[in-house]
């Protein structure tokens, strides 16, 4: 092969490697992706809670207890199935989200799991979250409303603790 042709081929190979590296380098970090706009914030609601029993508990009679093996003679019996959780999220008086979540488990006796992420405009808002965990009681026993300041990019977590109720973190 003539020297000149060999040099051209070598130059072509070098260019090919450079283009390959440039392609890899470009798409490894570009173009930038805007996941959250400059004027936006996020509210994440995550609740794990076992609802109240679906039916009333009752006391067993003496006859009923006598019929049971000694190790199973428990006086108070409750239905196994749990109430679904009803959640409402309000922002500045506007309903943002409503959800009814069934209990987990084959017998619907486990906790209900709720997770949601909302993108909201940054700024000051009145955030209200309310939760009902019993089909036998009216209203929402857990209700929290608060004025929150959401700076751009802020991620506000809302969760639940049976002792503390609904928490904004």
């Amino acid at each position: 092969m003539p020297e000149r042709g060999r040099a051209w081929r070598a130059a072509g190979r070098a260019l090919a490697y450079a283009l390959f590296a440039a392609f890899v380098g470009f798409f490894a970090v570009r173009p930038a992706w805007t996941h959250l706009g400059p004027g936006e914030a996020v509210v994440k609601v995550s609740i794990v809670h076992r609802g109240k029993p679906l039916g009333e508990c009752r006391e067993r009679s003496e006859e009923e207890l006598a019929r049971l093996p000694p190790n199973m003679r428990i006086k108070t019996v409750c239905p196994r199935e749990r109430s679904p959780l009803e959640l409402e999220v309000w922002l500045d008086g506007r309903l943002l989200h409503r959800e009814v979540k069934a209990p987990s488990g084959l017998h619907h006796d486990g906790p209900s799991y709720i997770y949601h992420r909302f993108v909201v405009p940054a700024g000051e808002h009145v955030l209200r979250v309310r939760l009902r965990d019993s089909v036998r009681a009216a209203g929402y026993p857990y209700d929290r409303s608060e004025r929150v300041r959401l700076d751009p990019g802020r991620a506000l977590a809302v969760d639940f603790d049976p002792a503390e109720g609904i928490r904004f973190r």
Partner: protein
Amino acid sequence: MRTLLRLLRGAFEPFERLAYRLFGGESPFHHLGALTIYLFWVVLASGLYVFAFYETSVAGAYASVERLTHEQWYLGGVMRSLHRYASDAAVLTLGLHILRELSRDHHRGPRWFSWLTGVPNLWMVYMLGITGYWMVWDELAQYVAVATAELLDRLPIFTDPMARNFLTEGSLSDRFFTLLAFLHLLGLPLILVGTIWLHIQRISRPRIHPPRRLAAGTLLALLALALVQPATSHGPADLTREPQVLHLDWFYLPVYPLYDVLGASVVWGLLWGGTLLLCALPWLPRRRRVPVAEVDPAWCNGCRRCFSDCPYGAIDMAPHPDKRGKEISVVDPALCLSCGICEGACPSATPFRSVRELVSGIELPQYPVQVLRERARDAARRLRGPVRIVVFGCGHAADPASLARADTAAVPLECAAMLPPSLVEYLIRREGVDGVVIAGCRAEDCEYRLGTRWVEERIAGAREPHLRRNVPRERVALCWAGTDAALLRRCVEDFRARLARAAGAGDDEAPPAAAAGGGGGA
């Protein structure tokens, strides 16, 4: 579907031609699978170095990567960058490998197994890449981790939402990083090695190493990139904040913007739909069955040459039914691609045999060696002119029929290696042909994987059945021009000119060895 594949192949063609001119048989397009495996070795080596300095804890992960990147930029930083860019390059070569094999209809028929077992590789590669991004625990890692958790929560796998693990700073534990390190360093790579092993099970002599020069060039290119544009982290992950603008790795993470825009259901639909489509492609539509190679027990003496040469392991050896102590070749129709390489390997395919009907020990029923000999002989006898050439052309490369004229005849083959070397000798010595050209796919890019290599070795006398030494090598040319008809024409004309010069120079001055256009010489 056929039109789509043709368009796809057409899109590859200009780049492949250019790459072939620059790299010859070492064209990256001819080694995409091997390049991908090689890049994973680079990823493994650089990853081991990076891991030596990595801390598997919430507080330590980000800081340790930052220290490595900035305080030890000359080695740790370069290794980190190499780790990232080699991973990205592997996705690129893997994607091209898939598209190229698809465009060449290499996903159907007996090749379905390799195609299907390649699909899990794709998932493994992405899982490896994504878990790698988590380990840095910067804003990008946080974005990827939360979105992955939310995506996984959409599947009926976990009862407790996985995304809860990323709710607040306190909800994430150090054990998460230990689990991640296990998955990224041991679990997923081991599974990937297994799926790659499965992927190459049905091919013999799989090419898992690219040519050295190509490997070195690729490594140098990535090293240069690592120095010019070192891989860096975003700001540290902060679960009280949501990542805003991200410098995304579009090789590994395009699914996340899709999730942002379209939601989990659509993304899972696309992923599962795409996977199912990839799995179903070998049967959309099913490949038409071509008669496979047949063995004639009377002529098979169990020499094992076809067994050794079959690129797909379709031939096995069994005790011969008629010849005590001998073996016989047995063809597995499920693996045979009807390439005819076995026909070219069979010693009984020699055209010099003086039998009424030439039958080979193994041959394609649709193109037996008797028909091949007759076509070649008839073509040679019709030739007129000072330099008479017979061109044998592989059916998957440029059609040599366009070269046919008074002094040039074209004989088609299914694969160049289907030609028994003794037929070359037969044409030159018995039929008085001046030269024989064997044309085929580009070097190292045989439609049937090993055909061009076997031809080169047989003609060079390095593989059985070889072209006998008494045949002047300068009267044989190998033209690995692929589908480039112009390159084939040039190769044949160069060969003709050399033959003419040699004839003019007389017997005392031997002509130069016949160099092949774009490929190797005989």
